[in-house]
């Protein structure tokens, strides 16, 4: 990579796999369970978190030397809250239907453990550019899992992808439904998202035994 040094590139690639915020650090689970019933919602959520985390990381990193450590959590909250409100308003303005689907969960990005976690663990001790990359990387790792989960939940639960009826029409009985296939209602319930995340964790750790902790 010409643009990024090897060390910087690792900031982006690590959270995608071996240090994934959801499957390895087990952060940000709540939203991964709540909004992944549709692929579109997963993608928008991933992008929203990416915007908040990347910008927030840069802001915190710029202020890292002037934030008194006793009140740093409050400062972090103010930064993330401001960003989340901006994202929420943008969604309401340009994608109103979608913002209704995501409902409170956009607002709840504030409490997403990944964001505060990265502020604390990375942005407070690193320069803005590296913090920016770290934010992009972690949000991408989070988004990747969201999209995988959203893909399977929407495909198996509703028989659609991004709203397109890829498996046929369940009411007019075309495509797969003509031979007796039915949507799996369990996939639309949050517990199934937990199981899908669990399966991803299982697959990942059995492919890379080094990730298994005792």
């Amino acid at each position: 990579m010409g643009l990024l040094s090897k060390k910087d590139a690792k900031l982006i690639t690590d959270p995608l796999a071996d240090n994934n915020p959801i499957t390895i650090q087990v952060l940000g689970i709540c939203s991964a369970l709540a909004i992944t019933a549709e692929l579109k919602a997963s993608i928008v959520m991933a992008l929203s978190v990416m915007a908040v985390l990347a910008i927030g990381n840069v802001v915190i990193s710029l202020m890292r030397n002037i934030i008194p450590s006793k009140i740093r959590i409050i400062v972090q909250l103010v930064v993330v809250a401001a960003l989340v409100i901006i994202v929420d308003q943008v969604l309401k303005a340009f994608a109103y239907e979608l913002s209704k689907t995501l409902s409170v969960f956009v607002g709840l990005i504030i409490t997403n453990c990944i964001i505060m976690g990265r502020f604390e663990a990375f942005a407070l001790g690193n320069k803005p550019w590296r913090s920016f990359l770290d934010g992009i990387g972690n949000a991408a790792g989070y988004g990747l899992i969201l999209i995988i989960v959203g893909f399977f939940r929407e495909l198996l639960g509703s028989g659609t992808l991004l709203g397109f009826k890829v498996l046929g029409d369940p009411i007019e009985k075309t495509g797969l439904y003509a031979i007796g296939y039915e949507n799996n209602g369990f996939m639309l319930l949050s517990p199934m998202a937990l199981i899908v995340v669990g399966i991803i964790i299982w697959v990942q750790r059995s492919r890379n035994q080094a990730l298994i902790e005792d």
Partner: protein
Amino acid sequence: MSLKNKLHNFKVKNKDKKWLPAFSALHTFLFLPNETTHGGTHIKVADDLKRTMNTVIMAMIPCLIFGMFNAGYQHHLALGEIQAVTSGFFSPEFWTLSNFMVGFWKILPLVIVSYGVGLGIEFIFAIIKGHEVEEGYLVTGMLVPLIVPVDIPLWMLAVAVIFGVVIGKEVFGGTGMNILNPALTIRAFLFFAYPTWMSGDKVWIHGAVERDQLIASGQNLDAISGETILGGLAQGKEIAYSLWDMFLGFIPGSVGETSTLLIILGGLFLIFTKIGSWRIMLSSVIGAIVMGLIFNQVTASGWITESSKFYGLMSAPFWEHLVIGGFAFGTVFMATDPVTASQTNKGKWIYGFLIGFVSIMIRVFNPAYPEGVMLAILLMNVFAPTIDHYVVQGNVKKRMKRLKAKVA
């Protein structure tokens, strides 16, 4: 050379092959293996896991056969081809060949799919992990066809079995390590994934769904409907079956759970062979009676009136709760699963009592899903280790006190 020795030599010759676990699983089914343990003294008992499992299956066979007759009987009765039973358990209207054949051809595929898919997964996991095939699926495979509606599509059953065995058992390390009862995991999956096939008034009698499709396509026929008694009570309807019908099992329901009489016989067989825990069965019945009595008192004293949607099930006499729905079957065959139940004797009393107590509570307060025993057992499966922990700690404390008293 005898067949037994030939098979043993075959095993020795191929001991490095990957598929050997699959072979030895079938081998030990028929013969006691020739291997002996090395070092140390061992006492060998005849009732290994496989024999234990086979005993449970034997206890369930009457329920299965009754279920086949009942599936055909309910089908023919709903079509108006035969009369309802009149003369008790041995009514000639019930035990006819035509009843049996209808049920046999509906239920045999369920059994085959359940065993075929489940054992297939067990073999695959055994070969990947390189250990012996575990026998845990033998009982599950027989339980599953008994606790589903007779008309469930086979592919749904196969998907559920894959889910139940992999997520319910193999991820935890296989037989003996699972937290939840695999058969109930399979049923819970089916219920939440395909609720239209697991509840309502169309699925319990073979033919009702097909009849609906014929009507939809324009044929002039009467619709068949057959609710379970629980489903009817939950909607506050009058129940057309006598208590005696419910006890003997001439009612619609999942394949093998209708006949309380045969379940009690199976339960006695399990207690007699010391495989099922009588503590769990008894305490679970006590729990259900206590909860039933509480609800009966509530309605008797007029706190809940007939306008309430809970009235139907709440006012059902407490003994009726014991014979309707899957309560008896769950208590005898599923709550007693030695892997997922409490291990300590005191723990078993608590565990069983709470199963009975909670299952009647779920029945009454969740009219959308009146069959509470499945959820109650799954819930208590999760708490069983906690119960054991406190029982053991309590015992430790008691002994510590005794020790201190002695020293002082």
